[in-house]
């Protein structure tokens, strides 16, 4: 009997391995190997027109001795923090409404779908659509002038760090709303009524019950937003007028001029930052326990 059970279990395990095999092979070939390759290439010798597999730390030295590159490292971190904060501040109340305050499951699903509708158009169109909105003669400036709130158009709206923050926040906020709304919708309403019955005020209930119980959603949302913002280059390219350079933009530029070694250095640095950020978030909440 015991033997039979063991056999059945072994078969099941073997089937399980077959299920994971295509994914594992794919990830090994197109993720693990390329990452190792990038690390390797970052130590190659780069001359103007060619790159040779002779190990050197010249590219690393070049990155850390250049004010431009270090500057863009800080810009990346700063912009990431600003966009992360903006998506949280904008996304949490939305998620609170969709996930907790809307009582009908149907309505809350409809609202979530509405949040996703912008994804029906391409990323580039969504980014570029901000130009006629934010430009000197764009929709926002015209409206503000017509309303008599400003006399001259605000030029800082477009081709500035502000326009990049606005664009990224709009594009990524939904990744914050989704996971938070999901966690909020799983909170047993009786728990909130119990807290109310025990005499806790709205804010007490929010900080002691609702926020802690939705924290895993915040963490998942923050990981989504962070990974995407840290690797960004398109929004900055389209909306900053080349004034804002993220690490992603440097990679694009370097690859464009066939400077593979330096591009690899930036790639490795970006990967390390992302790894640290994700590890940091995962320390806050034990997702295994929560999901």
């Amino acid at each position: 009997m015991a033997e039979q059970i063991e056999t059945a279990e072994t078969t099941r395990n073997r089937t399980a391995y077959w299920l994971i095999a295509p994914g594992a092979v794919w990830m090994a070939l197109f993720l693990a190997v390329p990452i190792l390759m990038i690390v390797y290439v970052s130590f190659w010798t780069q001359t103007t027109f060619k790159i040779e597999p002779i190990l050197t730390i010249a590219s690393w030295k070049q990155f850390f001795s250049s004010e431009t590159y270090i500057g863009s490292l800080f810009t990346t971190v700063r912009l990431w923090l600003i966009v992360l904060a903006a998506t949280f501040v904008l996304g949490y109340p939305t998620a609170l409404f969709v996930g907790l305050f809307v009582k009908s499951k149907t309505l809350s699903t409809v609202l979530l779908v509405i949040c996703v509708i912008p994804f029906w158009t391409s990323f580039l169109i969504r980014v570029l659509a901000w130009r006629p909105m934010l430009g000197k003669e764009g929709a926002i400036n015209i409206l503000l002038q017509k309303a008599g709130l400003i006399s001259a158009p605000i030029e800082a709206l477009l081709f500035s760090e502000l326009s990049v923050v606005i664009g990224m926040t709009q594009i990524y906020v939904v990744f914050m709303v989704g996971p938070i709304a999901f966690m909020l919708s799983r909170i047993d309403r009786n728990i909130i009524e119990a807290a109310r019955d025990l005499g806790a005020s709205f804010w007490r209930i929010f900080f002691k019950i609702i926020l802690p119980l939705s924290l895993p959603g915040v963490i998942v949302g923050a990981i989504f937003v962070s990974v995407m913002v840290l690797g960004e280059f398109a929004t900055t390219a389209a909306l900053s007028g080349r004034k804002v350079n993220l690490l992603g933009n440097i990679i694009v530029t370097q690859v464009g001029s066939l400077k593979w070694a330096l591009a690899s250095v930036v790639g490795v640095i970006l990967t390390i930052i992302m790894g640290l950020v994700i590890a940091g978030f995962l320390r806050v909440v034990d997702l295994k326990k929560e999901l």
Partner: protein
Amino acid sequence: MAETISNISLSGVTKRYGDVTALDGVSLVLEGNEYVSLLGPSGSGKTSLLRAIAGFEAPDAGKVTVFGRDVTHLAPHKRGIGFVFQNFALFPHLSVYDNVAFGLANADSPPPADEIRRRVTDMVRLVGLTGLEERGVGQISGGQRQRVALARTLVTEPRLILLDEPLGALDANLRMRMRDELRHIRERLGVTFLHVTGSETEALAMGDRVVVLDRGRVAQFAAPDVILNSPANPNVARFLNRYNVLSGALRGEAFASAYGDLPYGKRVESGDAAYGIRYDRIAVVEETAPASGVGIPVTFVTSEYLGSAVMYFFEAADGHILEVEHHLGKGRMPEFRPRGKYRLQWKPEDAIVFG
């Protein structure tokens, strides 16, 4: 209905959801320091009544006073009423101690920290959870969770506790133990418990008095033995699950049923006509045996062994199933032939007629 400072009074409480009237002018007076069970089938308005008293939903009409204070339009936590939820609704991210302390620590004007600690520790001891204070509520058993839910409410010192099917989430064994426990805890604190249940056995066993709710109205409010021995109407008799309820019409000294005229002993004034005979007041005799008292011919269908008693199921000529309970203390278990013809007999004075 007299409202005094020592009781909880509901007068004409009405609640509608669209076209459905969940509560239809409910009036009740609960005394301080008593255990009241609230019995009703699902959809009878039990939960709506509890939520209206607790203040989670405002009634469309009527008045709720708690110890002399009109609380009809007061927020739940200002009513001095505790609520124990059916699924306990514990805070999943907090420890046993923090769950119990929640109401005190998060009050508008919380008591000093050492008083909170003393009261929480005392309450944890009272419900028998000492030593488990630091456990998460996911790491304790169902019965222990029930105690946490109770302690969490009791620690805020309400004088009325509403319990919404508090034993529903426990397995049968634990349910019996918790029944005792609930009564003990209540007696020690001298508060009023209003215990909602769909189980007639639980309602009769737990309550000093029992409220029977039927379609949003109070059908009967009396001591358990009164309810059992003289149900107020045929529906109450049906919920009790102790009566065969036969339909027909009341005609003077007899009840005209599908099985002929049945004599009866006691009559209860009621809008609906019915004839009730308790499961355990019926004798089974051979079809050919000499008749005595009231009797109707039946066919044996099946039996169900309950441990201390056996339930026998018989089919009357019109297909109606009649139940007979035989207590094994009264003798060994009789055997009946499958599909055998018998007659059910009882004394007229054991039967109740409604009408």
